[in-house]
């Protein structure tokens, strides 16, 4: 039982966060919800607009395109990231004494600032003389125009996004080390193949971590902005030379808010994204009940 004195101390400790949340997150969110029902250009007073902004989103081809680009990116990025990170973590686990070195090497790219990363990948992915196409050329493949052909821009961005796989791999490595060794021993005694061990022992053992990374990376992917903006919108913020292939939802929201000064419409776009993310997360939470196992539930 917590005493009143301890409770007060506890509240005092969390007070900075609570104040910060109310003033810097919840407050602006509620304000933007209000703005989404207005026409507002920063300089003139906001005018009530009812549901006009939300209706316009339903008819806005660029908003639909941006949403599709974002969903497409997420559907490619998240599964690839999880599979690659899991593969790397499994390899790391077998690395023995050199694991610390490889873990550091794997994690280092995560420290690269996103803008520097985008500039680097513009060079690596250049279809004319980029290193990635040069490597493909060694194997007899003619690489695509990753940065200028609309059909290849999103796959190129997914490729770039895997640069930061290290942080997820390190989480999986920690999870893998917590799977009790006796389970593998039992499985081996029952004649389970390595694949069946992975499927029936490893994966259930780390399902909590996989679930966490699935949710976190899905939310982050649906909010993708910095790298794509730097690569394709940095020089010409309104219309990149590659068309709308890299127009992600948050980039479109940013353009409407700060390029066209349509704060009401941009707020409505933000709330639609919030609802989309909330719906996807709710679905993931629902599905997790059947597939995610926690040690302390038993």
């Amino acid at each position, binding site marked *: 039982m917590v005493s009143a004195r301890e409770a007060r101390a506890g509240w*005092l400790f969390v007070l900075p966060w609570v104040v910060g949340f109310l003033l810097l997150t919840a407050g602006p969110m509620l304000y933007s919800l209000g703005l989404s029902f207005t*026409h507002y250009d920063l*300089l*003139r007073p906001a005018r009530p607009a009812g549901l006009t902004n939300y209706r316009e989103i339903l008819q806005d081809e660029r908003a639909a395109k941006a949403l599709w680009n974002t969903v497409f990116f997420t559907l490619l990025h998240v599964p690839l990231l999880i599979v690659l990170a899991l593969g790397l973590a499994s390899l790391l686990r077998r690395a023995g004494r050199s694991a610390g070195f490889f873990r550091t090497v794997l994690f280092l790219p995560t420290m690269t600032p996103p803008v520097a990363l985008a500039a680097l990948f*513009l060079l690596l992915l250049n279809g004319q003389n980029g290193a990635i196409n040069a490597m493909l050329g060694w194997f007899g493949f003619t690489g695509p125009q990753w940065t*200028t052909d609309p059909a290849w821009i999103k796959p190129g961005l997914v490729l770039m996004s895997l640069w930061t796989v290290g942080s997820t791999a390190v989480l999986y490595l920690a999870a893998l080390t917590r799977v009790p060794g006796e389970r593998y021993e039992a499985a081996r005694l029952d004649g389970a193949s390595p694949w069946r061990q992975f499927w029936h022992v490893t994966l259930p053992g780390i399902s909590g971590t996989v679930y966490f990374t699935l949710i976190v990376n899905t939310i982050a992917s649906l909010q993708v902005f910095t790298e794509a903006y730097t690569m394709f919108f940095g020089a010409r913020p309104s219309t990149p030379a*590659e068309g709308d292939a890299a127009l992600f939802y948050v980039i479109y929201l940013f353009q409407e808010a700060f390029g066209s000064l349509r704060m009401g419409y941009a707020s409505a776009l933000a709330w639609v994204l919030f609802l989309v993310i909330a719906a996807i997360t709710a679905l993931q939470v629902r599905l997790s009940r059947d597939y995610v196992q926690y040690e302390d539930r038993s």
Partner: protein
Amino acid sequence: MSRCLVALLIMAVCAGCGGLGPSVADRPNTLVTTGFGLPDEHATARVGVFRARHPEVDLRVNEGVLDEQQFLSAVAAGDPPDLVYADRRKLGGYAARGAVQDLGPCLRRQHVDLNTFREAAVRQVTYAGTVYGVPDFFSVRVLILNNPVLREAGVDPAALSTTDWQRLAETTAKLARTENGKIARIGFDPRVPEFVALWARANGADLVGDEPHLDDPRVVEAVRYTTDLVRAQGGWASFKAFRDTFDSFGANNEFVTGQVAAMAMDSWYVNTIAANSPDADVTVVPFTDRQGAPLTEAGGQAWAIPQGARHPDLACEFIATMTAADTWATAAKARRDALAKKGKPYSGTFTANRAADEKIFSEVYDPRGIRVLEQGVRVVQSVQDKAFALPPNPAASDLVRSWESAVTRVLLGQQRPEESMAQAQREADRAITRVGGR
């Protein structure tokens, strides 16, 4: 324990409140600018002139490019800077929204005669008959030809022009080169979608007059022609990827390496070539319309005073000083001397103030026998007063996005020119309707 925590909390709150009092910008004799940087002597020497005249003024130059959101939020919050330095195309939107002040009384008080400024630049800062800004730099658009590449292909540099579109397309095909299925040289780069207003004007149409004309058949024809030029040289994806490999600001730029035979470009690039590759054998010629008359499009920045600025009189004096002919000449000398120390030529400074340019090019200009400057600067000067500028529009950002997106769609083969420009026209109409309130 809890007393200590409470005390710490109170201290933290008090420390945070320290910033809520009157700001430095509220003090008299303080000037705050936004959107203006101090990258070279053009900026530092001019600021130096103002500081020498007003040592009592605390001038705070917030360096970096203009952050539009920050600027407009500051105006909306009643806490604007005293001066804003912005692309002239943006001013119409600011004026329509009431974000910047009418400069008429200021200019009269400071005896600034806008007749000495270039007409196209003044047009860009005049919205609904009222002047909202004073033009600063002035750039135009010209053609830059790579002489050795042209001669090697049997093309006389003197004969290459944008007058005869059929002939230009044939010359482009002759100059362009591919190796192993990859572009090895661009024959002619029309610089679309950025220069589409220039190509449309060359074909007799303005993209925007009192209202947008993006689906005008002459605009559509210009879009079709320029995008076909790109398509014939390998298609937009390869063309753009190849262009991205250029070391445009280095000694091995696209003219030195022979990666480009000819292209339309902004006039400042002549200075860049001269500074980085003074031996580059290039010729600068005017862009021409289809009748052969020289034609160019103006660009550049302007100074304006935001609505609610705390020190408008001082700001006005600052603008008058920064854009005066004598100040520009002082800056030009400082720039020339700094470059001379590095053994580099001074290629002149193109301003929107005719009187300033006369002083600079008669008293300070130091081309040091570099041919690209001696020849190129003459051409740039010859077209400056022939420049046109699209009129300011409150929805300028949206309009530019509409037509550039439309041309990009055609470049990517996603739409036909007439279809894409019709869509652009609809988007532009909607943007203009919207800007009335939203």
